């Protein structure tokens, strides 16, 4: 991985691994049966739909592969992915639809 030393890469892998384990172990292991405050549960429910779109949005509009220029093929692929995911309620179908759209779009451009 360019830009990172071996130590930094393994620091990242091990930190994320240990942190993730303790997130999974938290209530089962240490905290036990004490109920979590309702507002914490409420925030946790939205982590995935908060983090993943925030990461994806700039990659969709300004892809590094086109030096940050908006690319119609990639934009169309992203839109088709979201619509398919919404309609089909199926992540795999959404990925395939998005990939096919991207392939067609790049072929045409």
């Amino acid at each position: 991985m360019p830009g990172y030393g071996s130590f930094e890469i393994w620091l990242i892998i091990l930190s994320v691994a240990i942190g993730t384990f303790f997130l999974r172990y938290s209530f089962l292991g240490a905290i036990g049966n004490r109920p979590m405050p309702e507002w914490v549960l409420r925030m946790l429910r939205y982590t995935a739909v908060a983090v993943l779109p925030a990461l994806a949005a700039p990659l969709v509009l300004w892809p590094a592969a086109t030096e940050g220029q908006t690319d119609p093929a990639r934009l169309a692929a992203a839109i088709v992915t979201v619509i398919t995911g919404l309609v089909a309620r199926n992540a795999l179908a959404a990925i395939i639809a998005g990939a096919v759209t991207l392939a067609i779009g790049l072929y045409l451009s």
Partner: protein
Amino acid sequence: MQSLRHGALQSLPFLLVIAPFGLLFGVVATAAGFDLAETMGFTILVFAGASQFTAVQLMTDQAPVWLVILSSLAVNLRMAMYSASMVPWLGTASQPTRAAIAYALIDQTYVLSIDYYQNAPRLSLPQRLGYFAGTSLVMCGAWVSCSLAGAVFGRAIPDSIPLDFAVPITFLAMIAPALRTPAHVAAASVAVIVSLLLVGLPAGVGPMIAALLAMLTGAGVETMMIRRRDSA
């Protein structure tokens, strides 16, 4: 033993999701410049697809180490919720058993198991553990072997294939089916808008701030909806 087989069998349809994701991670991580040990380090030690993709993407953008770690962990915060909801069913297992469950507590093993436990509340603890072990063996085995296959054979993929876009497509595909309620839609919208507005900040900072605001939005909208329903 019968519960184990039952869990393993019911996991098979999920392989359609796990196997391509695993392959894709191996391919994407290798294309980004990780060697085999590092790629498999992520897969075996972290064992959480979305956060592995997050780490690889942010490192491709040359984000600082602390931000890569924080963002990748943020993606996994939901697992604390899974952990909490498993306590009534598996909380009485021994300490090492609970640690092993924690390691294998991914979206798919969680969803399958909690569904099974709720539909058959009279199961004994060994039966519940057997079922969870069955789902874990299938899912973990598939995740690790497919990721390995992707890392080993991914080098053969020509440069003309736009792998750069595999990560955003994967993220969008993972969240779109989850946009079930106005609160989820509001959270995702805030995440997108704020992240786009903050794009000038150093790599990874904008999405982190956007995600925090989005979580607050989701929780806020949910609270509002409950109040409205209660007062109606």
